[in-house]
């Protein structure tokens, strides 16, 4: 048991870091942002084929690499640092995680190998208009059982890479309670509209279904979603830590180089202290994340939620302070700070806000 990376994690982390430098520098990220697409297909191909990241968290029996949580965490840190736009979170984490957590062996055998190979993009449709919870307590999307499977009617918002997904796992309420239903891209009555979300590096879409044919998956939908959130929390926190490391580097460098009133601005405590706070809060989140993914743990629910609670706030503040410490320059479109600030905001509200993470944590440690 250790909080330090082992050699494998070091290697994985470095490989992804080098990949990001070479194949997805910020110029490439800005190309994607300026285009209609939500990611670059070549980068996606390389992420899946060269690095095998789409299958990293998927067990070997379903075509994945069966990596440990610590490996997964090490791999996603540099992706967060580089704000690499890709459907990994939607497909390889959310969709694959939900499938794994369900109880539908046939569906796993059919879909997981394709998701693991990156041949297919999946996503999960959960949140609904008029509800501030990631998973609405009362789902307005309804599923009706039919002879062929089910038919769905309702609207889902903030669906990650919704417009890119070949298959959507939709959570809907039916006569038997909430369940997960698989919808194919070409299903009738399905409308997917890419929306301008706050985050420029994560594609989102609004999905409407009108009597849309679907395949109900067996297993307790809500419980599976709940379990999936542990993996999501680890992956998002890893990206957040990577991003904060980059922000700290940007800000500390600027504080040394930019002069004001005849001195580097980093000589003023008004700059120096926020930068020191950034280091400290990053250090705490980093340590909390390391402990969350430490080997030999059965249940990471509390630790992962606790890490997200801290990471959300620390990343929002770090990206905001990066803008503030850079002064006017940091507020320009040209500077990268706002890209991180927008990413931080999205992380802060998707997959359960900080308040929901606190409720999740409280349910684990208080009851």
């Amino acid at each position: 048991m250790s909080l330090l990376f082992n050699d494998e994690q070091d290697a994985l982390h470095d490989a992804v870091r080098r990949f990001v430098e070479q194949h997805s520098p910020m110029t490439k990220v800005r190309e994607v942002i300026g285009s209609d697409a939500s990611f670059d297909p070549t980068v996606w191909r390389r992420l899946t084929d060269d690095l095998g990241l789409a299958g990293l968290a998927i067990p070997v029996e379903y075509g994945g690499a069966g990596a440990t949580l610590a490996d997964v965490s090490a791999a996603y840190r540099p992706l967060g640092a580089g704000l690499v736009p890709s459907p990994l979170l939607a497909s390889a984490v959310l969709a694959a995680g939900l499938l794994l957590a369900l109880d539908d062996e046939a569906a796993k055998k059919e879909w997981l190998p394709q998701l693991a190979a990156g041949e297919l993009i999946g996503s999960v449709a959960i949140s609904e208009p008029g509800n501030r919870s990631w998973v609405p307590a009362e789902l307005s999307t309804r599923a009706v059982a039919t002879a062929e499977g089910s038919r769905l009617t309702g609207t889902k918002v903030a669906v990650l890479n919704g417009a890119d997904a070949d298959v959507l796992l939709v959570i809907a309420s039916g006569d038997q309670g909430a369940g997960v239903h698989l919808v194919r891209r070409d299903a009738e009555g399905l409308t997917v509209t890419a929306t301008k979300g706050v985050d420029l590096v994560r594609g989102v879409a609004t999905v409407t279904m009108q009597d849309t044919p679907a395949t109900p998956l067996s297993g307790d939908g809500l419980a599976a979603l709940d379990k999936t959130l542990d993996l999501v929390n680890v992956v998002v926190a890893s990206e957040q830590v990577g991003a904060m490391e980059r922000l700290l580097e940007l800000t500390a460098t600027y504080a040394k180089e930019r002069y004001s009133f005849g001195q580097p601005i980093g000589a003023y405590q008004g700059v120096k202290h926020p930068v020191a706070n950034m280091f400290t809060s990053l250090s705490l989140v980093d340590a909390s994340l390391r402990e969350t993914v430490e080997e030999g743990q059965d249940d990471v629910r509390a630790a992962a939620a606790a890490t997200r609670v801290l990471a959300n706030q620390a990343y929002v503040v770090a990206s905001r302070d990066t803008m503030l410490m850079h002064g006017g320059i940091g507020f320009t479109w040209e500077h990268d700070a706002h890209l991180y600030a927008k990413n931080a905001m999205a992380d802060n509200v998707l997959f359960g806000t900080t308040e929901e993470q606190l409720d999740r944590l409280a349910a684990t440690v208080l009851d």
Partner: protein
Amino acid sequence: MPIDEFRAKARAWLEANAKPYDEADEYHFSLEESKRFQKALWDAGLAGITWPKEYGGQGLGAAEQVAFNQEAADFALPTGPFVIGLGMPAPTIMELGTEEMKKRHLPKMVSGEEIWCQLFSEPSGGSDVASLRTTAKRTENGWVINGQKVWTTGAQFSDFGAIIARTDPEAPKHQGITMFVVDMHHPGVTVRPLKVATGDSPFNEVFFDDVEVPADAVIGEVNRGWQASVIMLRNERVTIGASGRSRASVLSFETLADLAGERGLTEDPSVRRTLAELYAKENSTRAFGRLLHERATSGIPIGAAGSAAKLAGAELHLWTAEAVQEVFGPLYASGDPELVGVVKGALGAPGNATAGGTNEIQRNIIAERVLGLPKDPGVDRNLPFNQIRFGN
């Protein structure tokens, strides 16, 4: 005219000519509409209320100005393009300009004929405005200006600008600066919009390439431009402080409570507390602005306390930008078209905390000038400008 009569007259005119605050979409007035409105306002005796009559004003007192402001708060006035000119260059010219300069410009400014901008900030300077590098060199008939300004609001539609430039690089930084009136239509002036984090371009970069100005374009005295700038920056903070409501109105309690209510979110105790806290903060910020205004109009010197109003407004904006995320949850990131304004408002918060002096600079001003704490150890105050380290 008794004050109540003046108030009634203002109210009646506004009701006949301006849109109510809640209804107007305040971001879509055309420049021509703005000019027409300002002219009509002036014709009605409601612009330049406290200005002397000889410079186009109404020659009335602070009481009339307060009455007008109170009535105007209920309306969306399309006077945006004039806010800077009337709030910053105009009072500076009133205080330091020659009689000829005042007669020539002030009446046109107040009647909507001339739009002005303010050209202070430079890329390398930031909050250290006095470190400016734009130069003005003497010529036979006046001066020639070269350099770059940035963060200039309204430069694209301004007729004139008040610019500060370095006229003596061998003097210490505050002592070799002069302020000029510059014609923004001069062919050597290039205005380029500056895109910011929100995706909008509310500011400009302005390039000066051998722009000649006549000798009588100097505002105040040669090499005393820093003193003129201090007057103008003080007016800037008052202007920014006073404009709090319309600036952040997409993040106001009223707007957010409505948006949350429409989405059924205001039953949630946590959302309710956040909105209530916003109400309390917003209210106190407005009340503080009002208090400063009442003090100033009662002849109680408010000194640099305007910096606290500016800081409070910026901090409220930053706080709200974070609070709205929790209020709307995933809807905040969903691209909900009705929340686009909220998201943009939130993204604008760091800009608000930077423009007109960063929060750190405001804190310094409050501590030093209001509370009398010692100044930062200034290493560059007395050095000749051309010997100061810039690091870039």
